[in-house]
């Protein structure tokens, strides 16, 4: 009886997984269909495979410079990720290993600031960025993103756990504080740095409200905002918009496949510590 139940459960869960995947599979398959077949699908698998949608997208058109949006997104997400990892690890190192005066108080303030909802920053940031003449430039999406507290908080937790004996040994060997950071602490934190990097990249890549508000000209959009606004003006051409969606998703799916374990594991641990 118990075994039958287990089999039924496994079968049901596999079915659910398939059901959850089916929109993504449909999206990929449909992006290879000619438009007529998209609107009148006789089967999920294309009868006439075509790459016309992708050809049109990667050809640099004025109203939808898709390649440009892709480059914008890559540039912005990569810069944000690098800066966040560097700034946060330096700050966490200063607070936990160099014990900067008032460091723990500062960490408290940083954690408290994480509770303020993101939308509250929208209006004042817009005003500040317009004064700085940063609106409609990548700086508007890169520089403010380095202020988030999550990285400092997470890396501080991690660095605190490093035994002091390792540090003392390095100091006896004549290590400078900078050498300690670069050659001892960072390598020991590699898994935490990778997790922070993945989450920051995905978060920045998927940010929607920020680029929607701070970017003005079509050529400066990031990919998500570009395709969303493009879709609202050409919304009946589903084959085309689905192809843009596939292209926008591919980098993330690659990241996910490569770091699946790490992503799922750090998702799992978020709810357990409180």
């Amino acid at each position, binding site marked *: 009886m118990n075994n039958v139940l287990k089999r039924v459960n496994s079968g049901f869960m596999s079915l659910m*997984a398939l059901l959850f995947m089916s929109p993504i599979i449909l999206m990929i398959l449909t992006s290879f269909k000619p438009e007529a077949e998209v609107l009148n699908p006789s089967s999920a698998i294309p009868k006439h495979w075509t790459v016309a949608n992708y050809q049109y997208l990667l050809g640099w058109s004025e109203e939808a410079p898709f390649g440009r949006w892709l480059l914008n997104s890559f540039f912005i997400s990569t810069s944000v990720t690098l800066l966040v990892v560097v700034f946060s690890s330096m700050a966490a190192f200063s607070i936990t290993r160099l014990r900067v005066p008032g460091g723990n108080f500062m960490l408290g303030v940083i954690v408290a600031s994480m509770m303020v909802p993101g939308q509250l920053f929208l209006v004042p940031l817009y*005003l500040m960025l317009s004064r700085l003449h940063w609106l409609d430039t990548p700086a508007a999406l890169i520089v403010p993103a380095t202020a988030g507290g999550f990285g400092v908080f997470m890396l501080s937790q991690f660095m605190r756990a490093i035994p002091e004996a390792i540090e003392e040994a390095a100091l006896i060997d004549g290590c400078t504080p900078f050498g300690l950071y670069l050659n001892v602490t960072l390598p020991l934190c590699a898994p935490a740095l990778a997790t922070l990097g993945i989450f920051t990249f995905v978060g920045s890549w998927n940010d929607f409200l920020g680029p929607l508000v701070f970017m003005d000209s079509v050529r400066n959009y990031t990919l998500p905002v570009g395709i969303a606004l493009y879709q609202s003006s050409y919304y009946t051409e589903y084959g085309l918009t689905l192809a843009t969606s596939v292209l926008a998703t591919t980098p993330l799916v690659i990241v996910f496949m490569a770091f699946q374990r790490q992503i*799922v594991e750090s998702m799992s641990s978020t709810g*357990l510590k409180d």
Partner: protein
Amino acid sequence: MTYKQRRSAAALLFLTPYALSFLAFIVTPIIVSIVLSVMHYDMTAPHSVKFVGSSNYKDAWKDEYFWQALKATFGYVILMVPGLIITALGMGLGMHGMAKGRNTVRALLFLPGMLNVAVTGILWQWFFNGEFGLFNFILKRLGMNPAPWLSDKAYAMPSIVLMSLWWTLGGTSIVILAALQQIPKQIFEAALLDGAKGPALLSRITLPLLRPVLLFVVVTNTIAGFQVFGQPFLLTRGGPELSTRGIVQYIYETAFNNYRLGYGAAMSWMLFAIIAVFALVQYSFLRRSTS
């Protein structure tokens, strides 16, 4: 210089880049936002800036659109949070009971969560479209009447919630599954020996042990729910008849379409207050029932 001096100098140097960024882009915006919320600030007429005290807050209180947006937001939260928690609990228990293939199912359920909200919106707009949509195509094939997924007031919010469930269920199920895996097996074995059956096992043993993690997912998803923007914005633009325009979209439109920055800032603080109250109430309520 002694090592101690060098260390203090280095400590300051290492902290400086982040500290500057934090001051500039977290602390300053919070202060600017407080100041803006008591000002009349129209972007189209920058010389008309003046102090107006609490009148932005009072205006929101009397603004029927503000209440309508609040109602739409509540409508989303009330459907989404219980729906998400119940389905995620089911998925978590289901995955926990799997002997083989658990990790694959876990990864596949989570994959939609990696998609961008814009991509999710495009995909589901194609599913939901009244004339060319996939769902109505299937319904017609089955000989049923097409449904007004996004164009009818009664359907629009549930449709948005359906898409949001698909998008976020995996992440929440993973958190619940992780908590289930932490429960020692001996507890179940002891209960089984005492003659406990399935439903009793769930309500007496599993759910009480899951309380802390359920508290966490209820609070975080309620906070996220109150800030919903992308899903309704992309699927319905807040329609039909503003029935799905949430509070964040109203703030966005007030500030960036009508350029009333002061009013937008004041409404942001009101939303913050509502979220804080809800989070605190849920927290103390669920905390108390745990002990």
